[in-house]
């Protein structure tokens, strides 16, 4: 294979991994606060359709992304009110949110299905983008790809270095103790859930405006679930989430190339590979139960009521 092919594989890998990075980092922050939101897939679909519709009608993708984030936040607020304020079961509510999001997005996007648009353009950075090889490798992505890297650094810094991040982790660890010290458990959890919603929303908009610039019903095709699995198997560490997402992207792209070469393996088997490979690798990485116990937020999935 030529150098150009390798560059193309690398670039497609990064492009395919980006929505997972957004969705998984958002869910990671939510879970670090002790809330398990299984509605990522649903929030992504709503983000995808809203981002697409606003982008098409306004002619501005930036507006589309903002609308997608807002839509994700609204979806997550439904979840937040039910689970944080009304103490509904988080698992059941999250599953319902996914079903709701899938139905809602299909309904809203009926007249837009299959309509193509101009996708997000690659940023042109003077000098850097024109560099030989390196320019093609690293400096010809669209803005959301760079945004995902920035988000990784921001989340990493927030969780490990900032005081607010420390309080968020403490709340995920032991909400009753945090409450006794005087930290606002419910407020922090709302914020974390809303952050997760915004991230899922933009991950969805990325699918419908950058990865494949069109709206198709159910187009997230399980990426929300992979994002959820990534968070667990990455043992709640942002760097592992990032690497896991790139692994998923890489295998996705490689299997497409393999299909192109006309291997005799059924294409369904190859399409399954990225999901299987990501999970197998991450399971092997986190097979030490101590790593999980030390990193898993101890109150994950458990409601908390300040008066109890």
């Amino acid at each position, binding site marked *: 294979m030529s150098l150009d092919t390798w560059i193309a594989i690398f670039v497609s890998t990064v492009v395919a991994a980006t929505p997972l990075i957004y969705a998984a980092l958002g869910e990671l922050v939510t879970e670090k606060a002790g809330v398990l939101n299984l509605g990522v897939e649903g929030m992504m679909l709503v983000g995808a359709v809203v981002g697409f519709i606003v982008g098409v009608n306004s002619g501005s993708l930036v507006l589309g992304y903002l609308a997608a984030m807002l839509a994700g936040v609204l979806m997550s607020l439904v979840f937040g009110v039910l689970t944080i304020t009304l103490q509904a079961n988080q698992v059941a509510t999250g599953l319902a949110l996914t079903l709701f999001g899938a139905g809602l997005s299909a309904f809203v996007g009926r007249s837009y299905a299959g309509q193509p648009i101009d996708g997000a353009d690659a940023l042109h950075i003077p000098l850097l983008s024109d560099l030989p090889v390196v320019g093609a490798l690293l400096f010809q992505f669209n803005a959301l790809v760079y945004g995902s890297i920035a988000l990784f650094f921001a989340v990493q810094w927030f969780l490990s270095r900032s005081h607010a991040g420390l309080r968020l*982790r403490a709340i995920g660890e032991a909400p009753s103790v945090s409450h006794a010290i005087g930290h606002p458990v419910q407020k922090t959890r709302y914020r974390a859930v809303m952050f997760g919603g915004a991230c899922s929303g933009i991950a969805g908009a990325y699918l419908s405006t950058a990865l494949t610039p069109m709206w198709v019903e159910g187009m997230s095709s399980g990426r929300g679930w992979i994002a959820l699995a990534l968070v667990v198997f990455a043992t709640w560490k942002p760097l592992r989430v990032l690497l896991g997402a790139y692994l998923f992207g890489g295998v996705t792209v490689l299997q497409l190339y393999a299909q192109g070469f006309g291997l005799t393996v059924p294409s369904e088997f190859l399409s399954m590979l990225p999901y299987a490979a990501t999970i197998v690798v991450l399971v092997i990485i986190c097979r030490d139960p101590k790593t999980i116990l030390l990193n898993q937020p101890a109150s994950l999935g458990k409601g908390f009521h300040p008066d109890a």
Partner: protein
Amino acid sequence: MTDSFPPTTSAATPGSAPRLALRGISKRYPSVVANDAVDLTVQPGEIHALMGENGAGKSTLMKIVYGVTRPDAGTIHWQGEPVTIDSPAKARALGIGMVFQHFSLFETLTVAENIALALDHRAAPSTLDARINEVSERYGLPVDPKRLVHSMSVGERQRVEIVRCLLQAPQLLIMDEPTSVLTPQAVQTLFGTLRRLASEGVSILYISHKLDEIRQLCDTATVLRGGRLAGTATPRLEDDAGLARLMIGSELSPCQLPPKQPGEIMLELTNLNLPSSDPFGTHLQRVDLRVRRGEIVGIAGVSGNGQKELMAALSGECLSPDVGAVRIGGQPVGRLGPAARRRLGLGFVPEERLGRGAVPAMSLSDNALLTGAATAPAMLRHGLVSRRAARDFATGVIAAFNVKCGGESSIASSLSGGNLQKFIVGREVRLDPQVMVAAQPTWGVDVGASQMIRQALIELRNRDVAVLVVSEELDELFAICDRLVVIAQGRLSPSRTPAQTSVEEIGSWMSGGFIAAADAKQEVRDAAAA
């Protein structure tokens, strides 16, 4: 009783006003009145005891002072001024610090992170470390800011909690049963720190039900009983019996242990080695233990030194790789599960009464059936459950052990801790065991029920049952045991009769004092074998 304090601020000049004055504090929960018109006054620089049995309302009252819970009625005066404390942050801003009884640190965070979380303003990590070191040196509380909490012993954790409070320069420090997790020596160190704080003008509210500690440390005592004020006393002028009378409202008779010749070995551990799968757990190493018919053997130790793991190995919850390392009545049972061991005559009272001792959401008769099915044939015939036998059995236990509840159909979690414990102990006793293992049988149980449970264990011993008791209460072990051993860092000390040993020796063993000697002996033995 103290005179009522006028709720006006006219007399409240800075020098004379009490630091904290509670008047008529009441708090009701749906099923229970936790506090009923309670008054409490703490002077500057005073060490004030708040005494009472479990469920007397001490914790609720302190939660109200610290702003965790709000009272239904009553007023709080701070330095003579009426205040509303609606959050812990407000309490800290006033100068109130609290050291919690259990689990108020975040295990997966470092010491410095834990402390940073409790400070209301952000502190740069570098200056915070320096401040932690300064406070810990000044009050003799060594802590390492960089360490992860889960790797620390219980005593070290408590030091972290105290340092965390002191960094906020409190004027009132609330200590909630601080000594329940400490060795006798560590208790004296803690008292030294508290006296020093008091001499600097800090008021201390000391919550406890341990009478001797209160008499040693405290200037004044306020006693609660059933949510009401039972009285105030000067502990130095009272004896244990007087304080106990205030606390429980009646007299106590001490346990009697008639002399008795122990019989054959019923429970035997030989060189039991068991690595723990829990990252916060303790590995059991070379554990040897023999319990004979007609004796009570007590295991003392600070919690978290392997008691949980030892209990799991005895009950059969955790199997031993070496089948002969655990024997019941001479039979090797290392690979047998809990039901099989029960059939061999094991009775077991676990430490967690809800979740291990009883299924919280099930009725008492169902709970009786769950353990009785293995050993009481009447309850289970040809694989079918006999409801009537289970009901009769549960009713019998309730009557014999004076369990206060709504009857055999009461849900286990609806019983108070002491009553549920009486039921569990009674259930095990009436299943007629040959070997009885009880973990923390009186933990969190009020004085009257504790007495009854101890008496039941002694009666078992008198009936030639082999009894093993794990407890953190040294007084209890010295009162009811024929022999004592100590568990520390997953190792078991040699055994002593209470007459052969002293609280000081057991205390030094509790912090691992016997291990070096045991290792030396083992080396000699290994050398001889080689």
